[in-house]
């Protein structure tokens, strides 16, 4: 099974290595950010105001939007984790299956659907 640095005759670039780790980590990190509600910032569309971190607006400010903040947190966090992965030995990286780049997002689907359970009212 080929990993982050596949030993299969191809010469993976550092971009490939980054993209592989990012594709595996970002869906997990995004799901965690959504479930734990960890936005990097909160946008309040009625006032066009942006607040750092999680912000609960007053009732007269209108609804908050956390999605932009979740995307920012998860992408920045995933990039940081990717940098941390660089510290792992090469042999450990090779053991990470490349198939995880599409298995991980699919595995997150039922969790995200569960996270939206508030909406599944019958």
């Amino acid at each position, binding site marked *: *099974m*080929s990993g982050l640095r*596949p030993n*299969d*005759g*191809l010469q993976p*670039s550092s*971009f*490939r290595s*980054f*993209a*592989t780790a*990012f*594709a595996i980590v*970002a*869906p997990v990190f*995004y*799901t965690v950010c*959504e479930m734990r509600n960890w936005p990097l910032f909160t*946008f309040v*569309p*009625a006032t066009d105001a942006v607040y750092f971190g999680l912000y609960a607006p007053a009732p007269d400010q*209108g*609804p908050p*939007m956390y*999605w*932009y903040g*979740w*995307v920012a947190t*998860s*992408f920045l966090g*995933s990039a940081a984790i990717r940098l941390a992965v660089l510290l792992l030995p090469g042999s450990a990286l090779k053991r990470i*299956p*490349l*198939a995880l*780049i*599409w*298995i991980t*997002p*699919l595995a*997150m689907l039922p969790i*995200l*659907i569960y996270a*939206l359970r*508030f*909406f*599944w*009212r019958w």
Partner: protein
Amino acid sequence: MDWFFDYVSVGTFWTILLLGHALLSVALLGAITHQAAAVLVGGRPKPEEEGFVRRFSAVRGSAYPTVVCVLWIVTFVVGGWIYTKYRIYVRVPIEEAGYWKTLGTFDLKEHLTAIGLALLPIYWSLWQESQTALPTSIENARKGVTLCLAGFCWYAFLVGHILNNTRGFGV
């Protein structure tokens, strides 16, 4: 931007943006579906092979990744912009009407498009392999991520369409 609204009303501006988003998503859907069909069916059709599916999938998959990435990012950005208005003028009335499942399916669309965005770098990178006989692991990963993106794109497109129908256009 104020000069712009001397000529175009605010409502018209957002309508143009929404239609632009729809057209971009149609282009993206067409591109990714062709590519997904190509990786599923595989190869160019032989002269004796006929039929819609064979001809539909008879495209060179490597011609699509850059276009798909650009379209995904632009559609995502435009959608993210429209989303600010959606939160107030679409979501609130739908909440008041009690269409909770519709809102849930739309929230899932947000999640899938964001995760799809994270997959674009590796998707693009894998399609840059020019070797004709790729290792199975690379071939399978490329197929998997392409089908994943195609599935996400179809879901996002259909849910966007359903939501538009739920709220009504120009209401």
